[in-house]
């Protein structure tokens, strides 16, 4: 398990590094928002879910996608706009989909996915399955009206929803102190009578433990749960935006003990000794290069099919 989880975080990390490089090289276009530094949250949550459970993601969704589906090829091909992409090239970075694996899409609208996640939770309740619905969102999104409406509604209907706030301290260039009047999002959960937990989102062990609790609570029909995960966005917000955060702050968060991968490795020196990690790194790199080749070799979707399938008139 430990190796597996580490490998998943590593896959996300290397995926994002590779993407960044190719994006800068002009190999593909569109907006990309990198997940580097937040890997433990996606991996920790998804470690407790099955393919039947649902994940709703955000604009910063590559990590969620990989953690839920393990589909590196589909993800890269999607970024390239290829027909082998997980959304057949129609979605791109912000709209990866894989409903067969329970991945219900990213979202280009901040806070836009929270109401959608209610629906999957509702469907589980309606059919009497024990599926759960997980929605990721940033601390910035927690100030959108949809957050409030959805949490109240989830609580009223006791829906099996896990709301995961990734508090990475910034919304684009705005620091959390200027966006969120009380940074402690669990207080918002309290206001609706929703159970919650705050965790160090960069410590996979903590996240897994919290995710276990949340999933158990929700699967047993006790209604929604909120997880407040403290983390940090290491990269700039996205491709085009200048990043002028304080250097010492950046340095602080890049220290080994604050990096989710290093932190997890330090906790498991035996299972994740340097030989093992080196081997994993080789594996993951190989897998990603394979996926890059796959994406490059794939074709673009055909305009003719497009018209047939989607045109209304």
């Amino acid at each position, binding site marked *: 398990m430990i190796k597996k989880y580490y490998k998943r975080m590593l896959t996300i990390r290397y995926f994002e590094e590779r993407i960044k490089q190719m994006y800068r090289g002009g190999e593909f276009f569109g907006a990309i928002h990198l997940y580097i530094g937040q890997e433990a949250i996606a991996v920790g949550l998804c470690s407790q879910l099955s393919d039947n459970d649902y994940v709703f993601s955000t604009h910063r969704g590559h990590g969620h996608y990989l953690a839920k589906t393990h589909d590196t090829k589909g993800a890269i091909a999607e970024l390239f706009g290829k027909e082998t992409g997980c959304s057949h090239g129609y*979605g791109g970075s912000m709209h990866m*989909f*894989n409903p067969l694996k329970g991945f219900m*899409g990213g979202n280009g609208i901040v806070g836009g996915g929270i109401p*959608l996640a*209610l629906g999957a939770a509702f469907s589980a309740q*309606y059919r009497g399955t024990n599926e759960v619905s997980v929605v990721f969102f940033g601390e910035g999104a927690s100030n959108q009206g949809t957050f409030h409406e*959805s949490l109240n509604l989830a609580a009223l209907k006791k829906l099996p929803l896990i709301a995961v706030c990734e508090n990475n301290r910034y919304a684009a260039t705005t620091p959390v102190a200027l966006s969120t009047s009380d940074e402690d999002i669990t207080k918002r959960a309290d206001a609706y009578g929703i159970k919650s937990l705050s965790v160090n989102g960069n410590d996979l062990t903590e996240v897994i433990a919290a995710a276990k609790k949340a999933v158990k609570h929700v699967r047993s029909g006790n209604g929604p749960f909120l997880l407040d995960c403290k983390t940090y966005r290491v990269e700039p917000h996205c491709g085009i935006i200048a990043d002028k955060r304080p250097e010492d702050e950046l340095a602080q968060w890049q220290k080994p003990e604050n990096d989710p991968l290093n932190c997890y490795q330090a906790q498991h020196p035996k299972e994740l000794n340097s030989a093992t990690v080196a081997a994993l790194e080789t594996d993951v790199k190989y897998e990603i290069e394979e996926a890059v080749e796959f994406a490059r070799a794939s074709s673009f979707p055909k305009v003719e099919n497009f018209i047939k399938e989607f045109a209304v008139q």
Partner: protein
Amino acid sequence: MRKITYIDAMNEALHEEMQRDENVFVIGEDVDIDGGVWNECYKLMETFGKQRVVGTPISESAFSGLAAGAAMCGLRPVLEFMYMDFVGVAMDQLCNQIAKLHIMSGGQVKIPVTIRMCGTGTGSREAAQHSQSLEAWFAHIPGFKVVMPATAKDSKGLLKAAIRDDSPVIFIENRNLYYEKEPVPEGEFIVPIGQGEIVREGTDVTVVAVAYSRHKVLKALEMTEASVELIDPRTVDPLDMPLILDSLAKTGKLLVVQEATSECGIGAEIVRQVVEKGFDYLDCPPVVLGGKNIPTPFSAPLEDHVLPQVEDIAEKITAFAKYQI
């Protein structure tokens, strides 16, 4: 034929469709209590229970999104806005989520949501925030179908068609029609989306009347000698252009009557398509008679002034009929 009201006809459609398909459920404010504020959900709660008749807080964004997410998982929600005017608070969930999820997923998810815009209409002195007919907003956004039944029969047949359709359908109701009894056939029937209806045949002028305007035009016809071909498009997106063009081939003259403001409305769209596809049929400039470009005021004489009245329509038709090339 038996006569029932527009609202009861829709209520029948809901009962039938919920019986037929256990994935159909209704969601909206007050739908679970006393049959809903318009009586549109009469006896649904008693018959289908609270898992399928879902009352909500006043949280239109959240419950619209809930419907979309449920649809992604295979359910078929019928979602209610108490008045169409309230849709402003949920436009993102409707237009960026519901309308686009199918294509953004590369076709992997379907969003068979029926979105009932209840209480649309004018003339009851409800002022600027309760008097809008916003079909053009949705016709402008790819991904929706938009229907506007103007009779009890169509309200039932189109609601059933909407619920069975795999695309999101904006279903726009008119509050002035809710409680009038009209002939509606017994039992199952569907009015296909995309099919207009020739309400009256005629040879001088084609009048396309959007939604409630159908009734105003019928009254106006009593005041004019002209031979009018009256078309109720019933679906405003996609439009039944063959029906309209065939009629124009005969009459050469087009008047569109609508309650929405004319600017960028359905009438403008009909004109755009008509001139593009049937320019040679036209004997005179097509005209849209719509709401004036002013938010609807409360006071009776002002409201009446802002909306096309029966007399205005009759006058326009007579002038049109007289028009010589």
